[in-house]
């Protein structure tokens, strides 16, 4: 089904009027594709969809959940984690507390990756972990910390690459057993994060478009990876502003592999790889 830009605007407007979600400044093309997918999945046309959104709040919620993309993995992009390990986290080594916000944490793998890394670096004690996402379903899954094992064997490779090996020193090898952090049940096909990890983070449903900072804290580190690609330029800048405001000076914003700050806020950060250090 072809969705015209008019249809898209109609959809966005309806959603804005009927729910608390404002997708106006989301990236058009991406949103268009997601909308197309939804129409196919739910076997609806635009008027039907719009009518359903108007009449059914739960359905609208579901639609928004369907629109969001929740791609994540444990230690995704190991080189980023290497940088976190070797160059970013050591900066906070002597802090009494380290506040970390995972904005758009999805199903939580990034949160637990961070905690594992912090634990290996002996910094977990001092860390306060906050995590948020727009989609309450994935947030719930994040709280559970239970993932499919078979699809995600790659997690363990990433774990090896980040935790066991050190790319700067190939002779170094930390034999950290998986059991320290996960329970792997091959029969049930699950990989379960240990309880001492899942209990710690504070998970909140949060809309980057309008919710501001829900945590009443400033942060040393904000991770917002592969989120702003779904936003348009204007919304990106608003988000950068939000992050900038809530970072401590010298606090670090970490974006996705292919995300960069362009425009006005670029000057307010010092760039170091994917990391932006607040000036």
């Amino acid at each position, binding site marked *: 089904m072809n969705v015209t830009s008019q249809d898209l605007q109609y959809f966005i407007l309806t959603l804005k009027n009927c729910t608390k979600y404002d997708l106006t400044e989301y*990236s058009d*093309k*991406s949103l268009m*594709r*997601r909308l197309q*997918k939804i129409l196919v999945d739910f076997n609806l046309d635009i008027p039907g969809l719009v009518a359903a959104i108007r009449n059914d709040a739960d359905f609208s919620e579901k639609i928004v959940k369907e629109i969001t*993309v*929740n*791609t994540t993995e444990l230690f995704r992009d190991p*080189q980023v984690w*290497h*940088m976190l390990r*070797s*160059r970013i986290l050591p900066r906070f080594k002597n802090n009494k507390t380290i506040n970390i916000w995972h904005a758009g944490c999805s199903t939580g793998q990034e949160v637990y990756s961070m905690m594992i890394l912090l634990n290996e670096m002996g910094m977990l004690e001092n860390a306060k972990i906050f995590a948020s996402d727009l989609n309450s379903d994935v947030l719930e899954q994040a709280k559970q910390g239970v993932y*499919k094992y078979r*699809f995600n064997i790659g997690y363990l490779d990433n774990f090896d690459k980040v935790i066991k090996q050190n*790319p*700067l020193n190939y002779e170094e090898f930390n034999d950290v057993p998986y059991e320290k952090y996960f329970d792997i049940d091959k029969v049930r096909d699950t990989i379960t994060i240990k309880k001492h990890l899942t209990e710690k983070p504070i998970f909140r449903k949060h809309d980057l478009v309008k919710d501001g900072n829900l945590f009443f804290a400033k942060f040393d580190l904000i991770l917002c990876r*592969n989120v*702003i*690609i*779904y936003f348009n*330029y204007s919304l990106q800048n608003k988000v950068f502003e939000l992050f900038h405001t809530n970072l401590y000076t010298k606090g670090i914003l970490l974006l*996705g592999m*292919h*995300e*960069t*700050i*362009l*425009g*006005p806020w*670029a*000057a307010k950060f*010092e*760039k170091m*790889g994917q990391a932006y250090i607040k000036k």
Partner: protein
Amino acid sequence: MKFFRNLNITQRIQIVALTMLLLLFIISALVVFSFSLKRVYSTTDRQMETYLNQISVIVNMAEQKTSSGFDFNDHAILKPIFSSSAFLKTDYPFLVSTSGEYLIHLYKEKHKIPKAELSQIVSHSSQFGYVKYFETKNDKEEEYRLYFKKIDTYNAIVGVPVSVNELTSSLKANRVVLLIFVLLGSVASVIALYYVLRPIRNAINNVTSSIAMLSQGKIPEKATFEFNDEIGDITKLLNNLIDGMERTADFAIEIGNKNLEATFEPLGPNDRLGNALINNRESLKKAYEEEQQRKEEDDKRNWVTMGLAKFGEILRQNNNNLQLLSDNVLQNLIDYLNANQGGLFTYNDDDTSNIYLELVSAFAYNRKKFKQKTIQLGEGLVGNCAVEKKTVHLREVPTNYLEITSGLGDTPPRSIIVVPLKLEDKIFGVIEIASLTDFSDHEIDFVEKIGESIASTLSAVRNNIKTNYLLEQSQQQREEMAAQEEEMRQNMEEMLATQEEMSRKSIEMEGMSSAINETLLFAELTEDGYFTSSNMKTMQLLEYSRTELEVKKIEDIIHPDDFVFFQAAWNEVQSGSPYKGTLRWVTRNDENPYILTSITPTYSETGELFKIYIIGQDVTESKLLELRAQKQAEEIEQSLLEIQVEQDISKSKEEEMSLLLQALDQTCLVTEISVDGTITYINHKNVDTLGDRKELIEGRKHDELDMMARKNPEQYKAMWDQLLVGKKVTREFSLLVNNNKVWVSENYIPVRNSLGEISKIINIGIDISLFKQKEEELLAQLKGGKGNKNEEKS
């Protein structure tokens, strides 16, 4: 006779005996009496003869002594002799003459003998004899016998009269005594009979009562007996009879109690009852045996029928779980056969190149055994059974054949059957069962029959399971596919979004990049300082071709005067700090332009220096004015520094562009105008330099604000036409800001999107007020010369 019949046997015997005795006694008494009489007579006869002979002798003698003839002398001599009786009181002899005259007689001498008797005597033929005569005495006629002897002497007869009464008187006296004896004897015999007969009677009574009981069907006690007489015999026989009856009855009771093995000797070869009973028992026994046999057969049949039903039921249940089914079947089968262990193997041909039998269930001593075992076809009993498809019945089990022993004792099973589970000659498995007892034929038949059912069920179950497994698998695969698909779609979406973001930025960057390339010097260096790439502007400035430049190092183009300074900066850069400052470069033609140079090191993700960026602006024209334009120069410197700081070390062009854009944003007045002339964005520099307010400018039409559009619409339109065909336009203008005249050199650069269409126009303006100011001042001082050049360069 009637009376007689009513008597009992003792009485009868007594009466008969008594009567007979009496008769006997009387007859014998009579006989004795007559014999005695006869003897008396004969004795008397002989005595008389002798006596008469003696008398005759005497008479003779007397004759001789005397003269012949009878005379008185004779009389005198003979008289005494004839005066004494012979033997009795009255038998006195006498001598009578033939004439009948008594010659001598006690008292009848001279009398004559009665003629009757004399004639009898004379007529008597013999010399001796007797004649009978009767005399009446006391009115009683008595009989007498007159013995006589005829003698020659005297021609006389000697005689003696004998009274019969006198003769038999003693006999008559005995007769009474005899009678008394007879009576006494009779009584005694009756008494004796009574006593003799009493035990007999008692015995008979006993026998009678026993027989009476017998006749009523009772079995009396055995009678006792003391005699070996006939009664004793009867009693003995009766006892035998009772005994026999008892034994027969006992036997009959035993038979009644179904003890057909009871021993019994018939009372005799012709014992009808006994033999009948024995026959009865035999036929009962036979019937019983037949019954047993029939029962046994019935039992077997029932056993088989019930087993078939039972296993039918078992096989109907659990027919979607092979393990449970096998366990159930096997356990029940072992149980049903009273065997002690067994195993069920299924035929596994999942892999046709490796067909084997797999132990799916094993039970021993009523416990499930968790053993894993596979048996190749043809291996051992089980393997052979599967190949031959025939039941194997092993009656002598080798001691170490079985792997499971009870632990309670090591009695090895005596017998093993291995039965193929086949259906229409296709094998589905093998059942092996071991038992402490031998298997009977019907059990084996049963197992074989059940085997078919098991085989068919196994086949069905296996198919079911396979189908279910495939279904589940496909279901699961479908779900996984769906999940994976969604994940893929999300990944795809992320990639697309990233790509779009990148391409959007990349397009923007290209615009920026070309803007920068048009306005600034830009080059990349290796970590050693060799040029790897540079923009046209740089090449034009240095007057080197690309290839020429590629063999040069940065230090080759630095003016010797600045070299020390540069060297220090370069070292800094090598250690990671960006450098910014004005350096004199050396061109091919030895010109020495002043270049505001920023040198920024770039690091890879692993922290290694891999590239150095050079950004420069030719400030030669203003360098002369530098001292006076220090402030402005510094500002530019600052901006360049910031650009350098923002310079990313990343590989991507987009990043480097972003830094450039930032630098540009800081240094230049950047305005974005849409194709329809709407101003969409102005940067802070714009605001700072021209004092415009962002919110007042953005969204307005360019031509509403532009002086040229108002004063010289044609020229303005020409400029737009140029822009809309993709050509860049440069112009300068001045305006008053806070009473200061601000000069701006503007570069309008059209930006094309991915389709090559002009999507917007970017205006990069440089504040040249200071230059202009200096220029004007210089112009005013020098009055002539370089104004034109200034105008061009802006």
